[in-house]
């Protein structure tokens, strides 16, 4: 049954619809289709028999849904001595370690530079911005050599390299702390609080919503990052780098459906995190105020 309200809504929609809107809608639909198709294709491939995979790559749905492939992924997906469990473990410590160290140093640096007047403050701010902007292409070679010489290469010590305290996270936190009133700190000082107490017990809780949103974006980025492990941690393959290495080393006798089962499983944590905190994450993914 089509009632008057539906007709009115439809007429209103038609009035609002321009040619540009239709083109944009078609483009978005096509884009969304390709993204969903790609994931659906990978999911379908993960359930196929290896022979069926090669014979009917173009089809999404398998003839038989072989969920055993997911079970097999736990035993088949190996890189050197690492099985999928150790890859997950490596992904976890690297992701949480990097994000936490980076967050703590960025937040602390941003707080001090935003809230305290001291000699060298402006210089530190300029350095933090300029060092991000000047492209120094040759430093990768000496940086890599340094990591080898000081024992960061192929060691969990690599986490310390995340303690730079600068980067886009610093900029976001700096602008956030600038906007926080210092009156809370003054009130706490009257009650005898010291500077560190003010930061930890007053400022950090105020900044928590902003920090947690950025932290989640960092976790997603860290989980998906494959370069750190491939470049610097060859003995500690993460799920992302391990899947790539598995594909590289076993290209001729590779079990593609099992490989795609691993691929699908590797997406689950980030999907859960994103769906659980969708609004928070989406709100933190905005740009603006870059110039200032």
């Amino acid at each position, binding site marked *: 049954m089509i009632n008057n309200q539906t007709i009115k809504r439809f007429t209103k929609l038609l009035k609002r619809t321009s040619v540009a809107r239709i083109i944009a809608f078609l483009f978005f639909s096509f884009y969304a289709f390709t993204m969903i198709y790609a994931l659906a294709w990978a999911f379908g491939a993960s359930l196929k028999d290896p022979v069926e995979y090669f014979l009917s790559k173009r089809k999404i749905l398998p003839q038989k849904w072989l969920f055993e492939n997911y079970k097999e992924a736990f035993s088949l997906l190996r890189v050197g001595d690492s099985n999928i469990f150790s890859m997950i473990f490596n992904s976890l410590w690297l992701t949480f370690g990097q994000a936490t160290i980076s967050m703590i140093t960025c937040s602390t640096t941003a707080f001090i530079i935003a809230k305290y007047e001291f000699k060298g403050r402006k210089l530190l701010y300029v350095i933090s911005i300029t060092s991000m902007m000047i492209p120094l292409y040759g430093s990768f070679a000496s940086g890599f050599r340094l990591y080898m010489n000081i024992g960061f290469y192929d060691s969990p010590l690599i986490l310390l390299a995340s303690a730079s305290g600068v980067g886009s996270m610093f900029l976001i936190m700096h602008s956030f702390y600038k906007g926080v009133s210092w009156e809370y700190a003054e009130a706490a000082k009257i009650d005898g609080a010291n500077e560190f107490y003010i930061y930890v017990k007053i400022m950090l809780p105020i900044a928590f919503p902003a920090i947690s949103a950025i932290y989640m974006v960092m976790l997603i980025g860290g989980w998906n990052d494959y370069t750190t492990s491939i470049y610097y941690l060859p003995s500690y393959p993460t799920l992302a780098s391990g899947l790539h290495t598995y594909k590289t080393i076993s290209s001729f006798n590779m079990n593609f459906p099992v490989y795609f089962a691993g691929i699908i499983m590797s997406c689950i944590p980030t999907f859960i995190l994103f769906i659980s905190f969708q609004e928070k994450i989406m709100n933190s993914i905005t740009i603006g*105020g870059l110039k200032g």
Partner: protein
Amino acid sequence: MYMTELAIVPEVAQSKTIKRKNTIKKYLYIYCMLAVPIVHFLVFYVYVNFDSFMLAFIDQHTGLWSFDNFQLVFNDIGMGAASGLLSNIKNTILYFLQGLLSNILSFVFAYFIYKKVLLHKIFRFVFVIPMIVSSVVLVAIYSNILSTGGPVAVIYSFFTGKDAPAFLYDERYATGCILFFSLWTGLGMNIILFSGAMNRIPQSVIEYAKLDGVGEMKEMVFIVMPIIAPTFGTIMLLSCISVFGASGPILLFTDGMYGTSTISYWMYANVVLQSQYNYAAAFGLILTLASLPIFFLMRFLVKKLPDDIEF
């Protein structure tokens, strides 16, 4: 009077001492809090870049000062069409241009997400997929879709009547395919970013325009775009500064084979796989010097841009 002044003197001195103590305490606290990032900066930025500069002028085999590394770079570039480095530079510029195109396209399309086109909430979610899903996953799916017998090959054969080429293993198509992948996966995320910036425009500005009878396209060109222009301009200019850093997921797709290598991949291959630190440092130094004029020009242009509009 005299007695009163005498009584004040020790109090002033005492308060000065307390003030000084507080200042010392404050500075101690500030520099303790900043100790880690400062040490990090000195070691991983100042030392690393100084060492990189020195490496460029040292012969890797003899350990002696020399210009051989630069000579090698220029010899390679002098080979013209056969030069590996020139091919890397050419590909890098292609990725840079792809980045600019992605920014422009997403800037235009973001407007329609901002204007809440039909199903915009679903689209917003789908556009974030490339951020949630690792490049490793997307590359694995994309390269298998492109492979022989895959959906793309079937469509190709249907339209041309010929067998599809091995897109990612053929020099004629490989770079184009990776460029397309980079554009496609980057586009959705950029649309979200730009529509986020557009959401900061107060509704009242748009309402006023509507009252004046401004249509949708005019609103986009004459109201939304000028307001977002400083943000858009800054992003474009920042992209220009790191022109030689532009790249795609070459490592995941082809390991630099089939003419797909870029400067970033070349650096990885020379440093991590071949330990050619000095040669890489020399080429890096040349690129840094080449990009410095771009850096200063872009800095000048960023300053020329209007500040972000306050609402």
